[in-house]
C-alpha cells in the first residue's frame, strides 16, 4: 500500500474521531442554560467542553497529516455535509433530556472502548490524545450511565421517556461497529482497532446499566448508517449552517 494511500486513510480516520467529538459536543452545547437543574447545566457544558477540546486535538492532527493545507478550524468550519464523517448518532437532535442522555450513554460506552484501544496505538500522537480523552470519556460514561439508571428506575414517566429514547436511538448504534476499508487499513497498521472487536464489551456495558435501570434492550432490527462515508441525516445540514455561519460569512476574518 502506498504511503499516500496510508496518509489519506489516516486523515480520514482522524476526521471520524474529530467529527464525532465536535458534532456531539456541539449538540450538547445547545443545552446551555436549558438544563433541568443547574448542576446538570454545568455537567452538560463540561462534557461539551471536553468533546470540543478533543475534536480540536484530533482535527489539528488531521490537518497536520493532510499536509497543512487546511487548519483544524477550516476543517471544522468550512466543510459541508458530504464531507463530514461522524456517526448519525452524534448528529441526532437533543430531543428531551432522556434523548440527550441516552444518545450520550450509547456513545460514551463506545467511546471508552475505542479510546482504550487507541491508547495502545502504534501512532504515538494518537495514543497520547486517546490517553487524555479516555480520562474524560470515563467520567462522561459514569455521568450518563448514572442518569440512565436514575431515569430508568425513577418515576413511571422517566422510565417511559428513557425507554422511548432508547428504542428510537438503538438503530443508530449498528454503525458504530461496522468496520470498513479505512478501519481495515488502520488495523493492519496497528494504528486503530477493528470496531467490531469491542461490540461485545459495549453490549455488556450497556446491558449492565440497562438492567440496573430496569430498562429493556430494544428488540427491533432497524438500523441505519452512512455517516462514516458522508451520507448523513437531514439534521446535520441545519447544525452546520448555524455552526459555520461566521467563518463562512466573513472568510477573511480572524477571530
Amino acid at each position: 500500500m502506498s504511503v499516500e494511500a496510508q496518509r489519506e486513510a489516516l486523515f480520514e480516520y482522524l476526521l471520524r474521531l474529530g467529527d464525532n467529538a465536535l458534532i456531539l459536543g456541539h449538540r450538547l452545547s445547545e443545552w446551555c442554560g436549558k438544563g433541568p437543574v443547574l448542576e446538570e447545566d454545568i455537567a452538560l457544558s463540561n462534557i461539551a467542553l471536553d468533546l470540543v477540546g478533543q475534536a480540536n486535538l484530533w482535527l489539528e492532527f488531521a490537518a497536520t497529516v493532510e499536509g497543512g493545507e487546511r487548519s483544524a478550524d477550516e476543517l471544522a468550519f468550512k466543510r459541508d455535509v458530504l464531507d463530514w464523517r461522524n456517526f448519525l448518532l452524534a448528529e441526532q437532535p437533543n430531543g428531551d433530556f432522556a434523548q440527550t442522555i441516552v444518545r450520550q450513554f450509547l456513545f460514551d460506552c463506545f467511546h471508552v472502548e475505542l479510546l482504550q484501544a487507541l491508547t495502545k496505538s502504534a501512532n504515538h500522537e494518537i495514543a497520547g490524545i486517546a490517553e487524555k480523552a479516555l480520562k474524560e470519556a470515563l467520567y462522561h460514561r459514569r455521568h450518563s450511565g448514572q442518569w440512565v439508571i436514575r431515569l430508568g428506575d425513577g418515576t413511571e414517566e422517566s422510565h417511559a421517556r428513557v425507554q422511548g429514547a432508547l428504542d428510537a436511538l438503538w438503530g443508530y448504534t449498528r454503525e458504530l461497529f461496522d468496520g470498513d476499508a479505512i478501519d481495515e487499513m488502520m488495523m493492519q497498521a496497528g494504528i486503530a482497532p477493528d470496531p467490531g472487536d469491542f461490540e461485545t464489551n459495549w453490549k455488556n456495558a450497556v446491558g449492565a446499566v440497562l438492567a440496573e435501570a430496569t430498562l429493556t434492550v430494544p428488540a427491533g432490527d432497524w438500523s441505519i448508517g452512512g455517516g462514516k462515508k458522508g451520507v448523513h441525516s437531514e439534521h446535520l445540514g441545519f447544525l452546520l449552517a448555524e455552526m459555520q455561519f461566521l467563518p463562512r460569512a466573513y472568510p477573511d476574518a480572524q477571530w
Partner: protein
Amino acid sequence: MAQSQTQGMAPETDEAAHFQAKVDREIKIEPRDWMPDGYRKTLVRQISQHAHSEIVGMLPEGTWVTRAPSLRRKVQLLAKIQDEGGHGLYLYSAAETLGTSREEMVDALHEGRAKYSNIFNYPVLSWADIGAIGWLVDGAAIINQIALCRCSYGPYARAMERICREESFHQRQGYEIMMSMAFGTKEQKRMAQSALDRWWWPSLMMFGPSDRESAHSSQSMQWKIKRVSNDDLRQQFIDMTVPQADYLGLRMPDPDLKWNEERGHYDFGEIDWAELKRVVSGDGPCNKERMAARIKAHEDGAWVRDAAAAYAEKQRMRKEAAKIAAE
C-alpha cells in the same frame, strides 16, 4: 430561629451592639452568628439576585455558543458559561447559609419577586457582543465584586473571592475578542463599534441608581454589606474602561465623556435613568424572553428532578431494608 426584630441604624439590643462591633472591627459574620433580620434579608435579596444574574446570564451567551467562530472560541465560551453556572452554585449555597432554600429563591425569580442584573435584558446581536459582554459586563461585575470580597458576611465574601479570580479571566478573554474584532476586518470593526454603542450605557447602569436615589445604601454601608457607593464604583469602571476603548480605537457613545484634570476622573453624560427603571421593572428588550426561557427550562426539567428524587428515595429505602435485614 427566634430573632429580635432589630432594624434601623442604631443597635437596640446587646446582641445588636455586639454584632455591629464585630462588623466595625472587620470580623466576618458567619452563618451561626446572631444577625439582625434586616441584615439577613438584605443579604438574601442581594446574594440571590447575584446568583440569579449568573444563571440568567448564561442565556445571552448561550445564544452564541453554537455560532462561536473557531474551536478555541467555542471552548472558551463553553468554559465561561460553565463557570457562570458554578458561580450560581456557590452563590445559592452562600444564600442558603442564611436559611433560605435554593428552591425558594428560584421560585421567587420565576414569579417575578426576585430580580437579576438588568444587563441581561439586552439582546446579543453579533459575535462582538460576546466580546463586549466579557469586557464591559464582566468588567463592571468585577469592580462590584472586588468591593464585595470585603463584605462583612463570611460566606459571601469568600464566594466573591473565588468568583473574582474567574471573572477577571473572563474579562481578559472578552477584551481579547474585542481586540480581534477592532483590529480585524472592516466588518469586524463595525461589529465591535456597534457592540460598544449598545452595551456601554447598560453597563454603566449595572452599578445601580445614583447615590442620591439608592434606597438601601446607607444601612448596607453601616453593615458593610456594601463597601463602596454606586457612583464611586461607576466612576472607577469608567476610568478603567475609557483608555481600553481608546486602545481599541473605538468611539465611546457619549459626547460628554472627557478627562477632568481637576477631579482626576472622566466626566460623563447623564445616564437615562428612566430606561434603567423601565428595564429593571420588566420592560427591557429581552426581559420576557429571558424569564420565559428560564421558566421553560425549569418546567421541562420537572420530570427529571422528580425522577432523581424518586430514585434517591428508592435507594434510601433499599439501604434501610438491607440494614434491617442484616440486623
